[in-house]
């Protein structure tokens, strides 16, 4: 067993212990019944709810269908935002005139709560996926554009100077020097963004949804189904971790040179 696998093993066992501790605390709190069962349901009933909903579904959709609907919304919004926010953020960092155009707009809507402007989106885009994905897109946008913009500001001047003296044009410098230099910052932004987008999922499924894991949690909350809520929260947490891991893995593969520049 080499050093690397050994470390991975220790890492895994520490993480497991840490998660287990939380489970035990939860179990004990639930057992003590300080709070009614629908607020802090016992692990066992959450597991029951999971089995039930995974098999027979919740209000017209199986767990997988709900999750699939939600993931489709989250990932569509996120990818859309990546394609628009990252280049735009980089342009804003690269050219102060472009920044002057978009900065006030992004900065203005950024602190706005989705709940506050969702109604306006519904007016424009209706109650179907369009408005939901747009809302998630808007949530995903700022962390991406801000990280991209900051990353541009931190690119060492020599890299750009070298490229210019090698005959690269402005666009080429942008795509071949600035963009790769910014990748570490962009990946950080993507990790923050996907988490943020996911947390906005419930807001987006507040309106006119009858499917989606976020809607399920909300709906269960309305009827005090603590077991279903907890179950839904777990599923969201775990899928969130998976999405994040995917980005981390992509980061490892795409920028092995991070920190070595």
């Amino acid at each position, binding site marked *: 067993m080499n050093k690397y696998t050994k470390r991975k093993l220790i890492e895994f066992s520490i993480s497991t212990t840490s998660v287990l501790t939380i489970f035990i605390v939860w179990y004990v709190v639930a057992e003590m019944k300080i709070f009614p069962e629908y607020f802090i349901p016992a692990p066992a009933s959450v597991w029951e709810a999971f089995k039930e909903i995974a098999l027979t579904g919740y209000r017209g959709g199986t767990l997988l269908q709900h999750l699939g609907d939600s993931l489709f919304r989250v990932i569509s919004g996120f990818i859309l935002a990546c394609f628009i926010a990252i280049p735009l953020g980089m342009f804003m960092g690269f050219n102060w005139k472009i920044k002057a155009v978009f900065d006030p707009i992004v900065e203005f809507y950024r602190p706005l709560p989705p709940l506050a402007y969702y109604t306006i989106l*519904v007016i424009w885009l209706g*109650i*179907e996926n369009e408005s939901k994905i747009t809302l998630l897109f808007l949530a995903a946008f700022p962390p991406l554009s801000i990280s991209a913009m900051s990353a541009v500001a931190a690119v060492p001047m020599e890299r750009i100077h070298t490229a210019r003296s090698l005959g690269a044009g402005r666009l080429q410098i942008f795509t071949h020097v600035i963009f790769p230099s910014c990748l570490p910052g962009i990946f950080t932004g993507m990790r923050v963004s996907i988490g943020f987008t996911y947390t906005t999922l419930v807001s987006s499924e*507040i*309106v006119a949804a009858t499917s989606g894991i976020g809607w399920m949690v909300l709906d269960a909350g309305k009827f*005090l189904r603590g077991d279903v809520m907890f179950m839904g929260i777990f599923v969201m947490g775990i899928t969130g971790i998976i999405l994040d891991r995917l980005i981390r893995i992509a980061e490892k593969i795409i920028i092995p040179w991070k920190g070595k520049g």
Partner: protein
Amino acid sequence: GQSESSDLPGRVVIGYQAIPNGQIISKDFGWFEETAGVPVEWVQVNSGSELNTGLAAGSIDIGLSGSSGIAAGIANQVPFDVIWVHDIIGDNEALVVKEDSGITDIQSLAGKKIAVPFGATTHYHLLAALELEGVDPETVQIFDMQPPDALAAWHRGDIDGSFIWEPTLAKMLESGGEVLIYSRKLSENGYLTGDITVARKGFAEKYPDLVVKYIASEIKAVDFYNNDPEAAAEAVSRQFDIPQAEALRQMKSLVLLTGQDQLTSAYMGTSDSIGNLASVLKATADFLVSQNTIKSAPDVDVFKAALHPEYIEQALEQ
């Protein structure tokens, strides 16, 4: 935060909702504050589940919710006593449909898109109306929407109708809507809905006097409204920043019950003979179970045990 040592709590926290009923009138005049002898704090709650949470957390002492929320709360053993019925929902909630939607009666709802805030009294009423007419809810596309969003969808034509309350109801009626059925009608058919006040068990057991004083302020408010609706509407308009005429219009669509009304068998009943409200709540809970929204509903006795008309009786005696 209630101090355990003294006879009075450090303060009383009251949850209210944005409904133009007696509670708001008494809040405006500060009647409970006059008698309570402790600081009173008013917090706004937006739904039954929020109220239930606040009660369970021990941070709300007295609060109000629609009857579906209360039924769900009792079914889930949230520790509260039902102490007062604020209003019976009459014409302030209704199923509105677009004039051009082709919907003429409940039967023709099949295949149409209807928005309703899930978990609210109107949700219950929509399902009840369907059941009454023998329409399978599966055949209707029911969307979960809060009133502003429902109105937005309405304007876009994304929905054909909505079971909704004021002021959204009025706005829909203004823009090509017509009422298919009022809640009043469903209440008359046994599907009673209303806004109900509860007191946290721990609080009520420890400070019954305060509960009585609170009820007294509610009774005063209903009487005040019955005597002088204009002045009562004035108070509501102050609280909600809406025109006085609008406040009056909305209040008129509600049925406010006096103290004596509540003690009749149709509602709370008396401490010797609990009224019909228990069965109404039980029916509501059963209905929610059938919709798979709550897990199970207890026996009617549990609902009876949750009703405490004695506070009203004491308040009326004073």
